[in-house]
């Protein structure tokens, strides 16, 4: 179903939703087809169930979301490559200053 249909079916509710199909348009990810997996009594429950389901199914595109969110799309943002920690001393190399 569409996000609009999910909102109409479950007004003012926390849901765990699977995004079945989406596509990008410029800086937006448009939700084409979603499935409501769970209707939750609170944000806490929705977060908890989302986390558990996402751990069990890392490949699935899941989200805990409230139906007050009007947009059937999500802005795209980037978190680089994530922190890449490493062992050893970060103070390394020899610095020479050019004339």
């Amino acid at each position, binding site marked *: 179903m569409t996000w609009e249909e999910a909102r109409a079916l479950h007004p*003012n509710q*926390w849901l765990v939703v699977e*995004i079945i199909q*989406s596509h990008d348009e410029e800086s937006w*990810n448009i939700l084409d087809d979603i499935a409501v997996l769970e209707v939750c009594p*609170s*944000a*806490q429950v929705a*977060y908890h169930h989302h*986390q558990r389901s996402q751990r069990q199914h890392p490949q699935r*595109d*899941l*989200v*805990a*979301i*409230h139906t*007050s*969110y009007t*947009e059937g799309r*999500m*802005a*795209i*943002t*980037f*978190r*680089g*490559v*994530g*922190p890449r*920690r*490493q*062992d*050893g*001393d*970060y103070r390394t190399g020899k610095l020479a200053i050019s004339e």
Partner: protein
Amino acid sequence: MEIIVQENLPFLSEITIHYGGQSTTIHNVLVDCGSAGTAAETDFLIDIGILEDDPRDQWLSLRGIGGIERVRQKVVDITIGGVTIYDFPLQVGALGYGYDINGIVGFDLLVATKAVMDYGNLEVTFAEEK
């Protein structure tokens, strides 16, 4: 404000999040100009009611090496190094790095607070600090 190096990565000791008239301080926050946005681990924000529904909430499609992820974005106020920035977007969720990163100061917050990183002295100064 001192840049604390842990696991050979730059951290700040604390930032304070204000939401709905309440505040909480988060420690061990990574400075990451490779992250477009600023983020915090939800667990530390539950006490100030961050999970409550808010018409200003947005959901984002977060991209990185780990693939695609969906993340909720709240509007909060943030105090960092004596500077407070109002109505600022904060991504909340499980960061899930598996080690002690409780938040990320992203490129947006570094710009908004006019941060100056001094790597020689491992210090960062923000707009109002002299």
